[in-house]
């Protein structure tokens, strides 16, 4: 059996890669994919702790997180399509409609 903290470290590395992508990229959809990566890192943590403590609640949280991530992806991508129609670009630095 593989120790739980190895999974936690893998999850930490994946989360860090996602943070790095969000901070350094400018393409909106790539930033969105990095957010999905961070969500998956958190899911891995939930499942690792669920096995460590033999609790089903962690697994159910992952279930709900997946549903919320699907809703978030649908709405977020619709926002990017709308932004592309208005600005002809997906660059997040150009999305300054609400900038005063």
């Amino acid at each position: 059996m593989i120790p739980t903290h190895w999974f936690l470290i893998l999850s930490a590395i994946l989360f860090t890669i996602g943070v790095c992508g969000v901070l350094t990229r400018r393409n909106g959809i790539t930033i969105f994919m990095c957010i999905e990566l961070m969500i998956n890192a958190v899911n891995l943590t939930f499942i690792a702790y669920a096995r460590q403590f033999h609790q089903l609640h962690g697994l159910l949280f992952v279930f709900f997180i997946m549903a919320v991530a699907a809703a978030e992806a649908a709405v977020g991508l619709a926002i990017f399509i709308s932004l592309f129609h208005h600005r002809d670009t997906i660059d997040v630095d150009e999305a300054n409609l609400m900038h005063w």
Partner: protein
Amino acid sequence: MQFAIFFFFAAVAVIFALVVVLHRNPVVGALSLVASFFALAVMYVLLEAPFLAALQVIVYAGAIMVLFLFVIMLLNLQHHPETPTRPVQQFLGYTTSAGFGIALVYYLLKYAVFEKLPEGPFQSDVRAIGITLFERYIFPFEMVSILLLAAIVGALLLSARKGLPPKHPHEVAP
């Protein structure tokens, strides 16, 4: 054997995640993210959660990432090269995330090392999950269904163009 599988698929997940962050073409990024999610599904199997591994493959790699690829190709993004990030932002982003990652791993190794593994198999088959889901979590389950309905309506409203006013008042619709 389990350890070999763990290290192989951990390496796969990390390498493809790095490709997502470093590659300029979003199509390549989306496909590497699919590969990374498959490797994570293997991790879920190693953690005795086969139901969630199946969900990961079906929902994430199958549905969400197809939506991403669909939007990338709809907007023809592979022909719009991303403008490079400013060097200051790049430097600050890499150093901040590296410091964050090092701190995270350090504190995990300091406080979250479990010497004792749980004994006995983890009862996480579909039956146990279903009983818990429909007994204790029935209210969040129904809320999630309403949330998904709201997401469908929101996505339709946001991405539909017909019927909306033109973006400039004096513009003549084609």
